[in-house]
């Protein structure tokens, strides 16, 4: 399998700020790759390095094996769905979608036919004559998608494309994007700060922190076996246990992570604490237990007894649920 995008020790420094710092990355062709991280972690800069809107201050970037150091954005065979969609307000939807073909000199009839085809792909047939201002947020997002796909890019870059949509629409679009990627067989590179979105959509993902990749792997890898405390904390609100607490719970003196859903409440056990907060989630109740300096969250499934606030309880879990992260 060819690598669609390859980063080799890539850095992008803005003066003293190391937005991207020594990143190595391989994105397989045809995969749905997510870049996940908090704001300012370097994920968007990485995306802009692929599209060519940023130039690396160090390292090499290859797209399908070809070094793109000297290739301006308009000559790269990648297209972007922008966070704010960046639709041209003076053009109607059809001309927006056909823009990429227009600048290549494709004739009016041919490019309009292709644009209609793309609009059908994103289920917006019949909207060609409208102006972007007459569309809803979700429809604009689809137009941006159709516009980016019209040039038949080999890699599609998506910069937080679902960030501005409400929850219901976002979930529907997640399924659609995934289906579209499957249908077209393209490589999708998707930037998000939403861990649920990254975990549910990506084939593989990179977690960014402070300009570096904290961990790269499949969603299961990242979720079940976080490599660092940052990853454990950022992806899915895991309990992060300091070495002494891990040892008290029967493990070695190392940092460890423990999923709230793997944590049970018990009458007795080696570690106990006071219940300080309860949060009803519908499918269960999240119980926060204060043990010394550490807070541990446990997810009590619906139908099981929930302790009262202020009660004392011990915690229990299956030994294999405890994931060790070393001493860092």
């Amino acid at each position, binding site marked *: 399998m060819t690598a669609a995008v390859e980063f080799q020790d890539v850095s992008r420094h803005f003066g003293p700020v190391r937005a991207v710092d020594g990143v190595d990355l391989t994105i397989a062709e045809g995969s749905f790759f997510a870049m996940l991280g908090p704001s300012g972690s370097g994920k968007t800069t990485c995306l802009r390095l692929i*599209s*060519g809107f940023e130039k690396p201050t160090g390292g090499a970037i290859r797209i399908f094996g070809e070094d793109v150091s000297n290739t301006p954005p*308009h000559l790269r065979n990648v297209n972007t769905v*922008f*966070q704010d969609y960046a639709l041209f307000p003076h053009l109607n939807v059809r001309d927006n979608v056909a*823009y990429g073909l*227009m600048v290549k000199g494709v004739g009016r009839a041919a490019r309009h036919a292709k644009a209609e085809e793309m609009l059908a792909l994103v289920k917006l047939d019949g909207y060609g004559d409208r102006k972007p201002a007459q569309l809803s947020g979700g429809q604009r997002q689809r137009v941006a998608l159709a516009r*980016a796909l019209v040039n038949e890019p080999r890699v599609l870059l998506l910069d937080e494309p679902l960030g501005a949509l409400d929850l219901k629409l976002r979930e529907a679009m997640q399924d659609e994007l995934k289906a579209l990627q499957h249908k077209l067989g393209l490589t999708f590179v998707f930037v998000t700060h939403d861990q649920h979105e990254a975990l549910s959509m990506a084939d593989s993902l990179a977690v960014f922190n402070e300009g570096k990749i904290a961990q790269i792997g499949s969603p299961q890898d990242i979720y079940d076996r976080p490599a660092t405390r940052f990853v454990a904390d950022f992806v899915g609100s895991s309990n992060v246990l300091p070495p002494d607490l891990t040892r008290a719970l029967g493990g070695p003196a190392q940092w460890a992570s423990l999923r709230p859903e793997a944590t049970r409440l018990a009458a007795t056990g080696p570690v106990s604490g006071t219940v300080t907060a309860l949060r009803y989630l519908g499918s269960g109740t999240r119980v926060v237990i204060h043990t010394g300096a550490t807070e541990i969250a446990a997810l009590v499934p619906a139908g099981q007894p929930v302790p009262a606030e202020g009660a004392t309880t011990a915690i229990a879990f299956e030994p294999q649920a405890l994931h060790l992260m070393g001493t860092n």
Partner: protein
Amino acid sequence: MTAPAILPAKGAADRLTGVFWRRPGLLLLLLVTPPLLWLGVVYLGSLAALLLQSFYSIDEFSGVVKEEFTLKTYAELFRAQNLDIILRTVVMATAVTLACAVLAFPIAYYAARYAKGPWKAAFYLGVMLPLWSSYLVKVYAWKLILAKEGILGWAAEGTGTGFIIDGILSVPFLEGSSLSTSPFGTFLVFVYIWLPYMILPMQAALERVPNSMLEASADLGATRSQTFRTVILPLALPGVIAGSIFTFSLTLGDYIIPQIVGDSSRFIGLTVYQLQGTAGNTPLAAAFAVVPILIMLVYLSLAKRAGAFDAL
């Protein structure tokens, strides 16, 4: 025992605030009535009076204005000498507007997209500073700059480029003994004086074009010149039109610059001034004053039809 008051005691001002809060329309009415009266009575009223005057005529023997409806005064506009004035003014205004647009665009573009912090302040200062000094002072300064023995002629002589000025002065319709007595001099001064009115709206329009739109264009394969033609220019067009309304209409109405710099040929503004002041022919002056209004209406409707306001 009475229950303690839940709400704080209200004074007269609080009650007034309450009334406005209940009826936001009342506040709006109070706020907009004075300016609307000003606009409606003083501004539009005087415009209506002007329009009315243009339908009167002047008795050629007594010089008294006859207050009877007639189109005779408008017919006078079509005399060869008057058509000449209108044509000359429109050509000048068009040339000035085009020159201002070409000069202003790079400046506005730089200011909107690249200038930051102190450079932006320097830009605003540079554009506005000329507006702080008297218009007359600037026009007279230009007369001296453009005069035969002025700094421009002196510099041209020193660098051996005097032939350029002589070349310009030998072009038909631009003839004159020096730039300050040539229509080309009038043109230069107009461009200088009105340039800020073109730069500022252009810069405002360019500032509103988000960077991501230019990136999207490049991302889709457009070269820089394609992005300029198909994205930047259409989006900046409302600003260009706004600026051109200023430069065009200001040139159409100005009566001072052509008096001081140039070959003393008459423009609409100057003609209105002379008809009203020395000749006492208010109806013809009014008819002349209606011409720029009509020209601007035609210009705006053409701009609208060309899609200049689609991006608004």
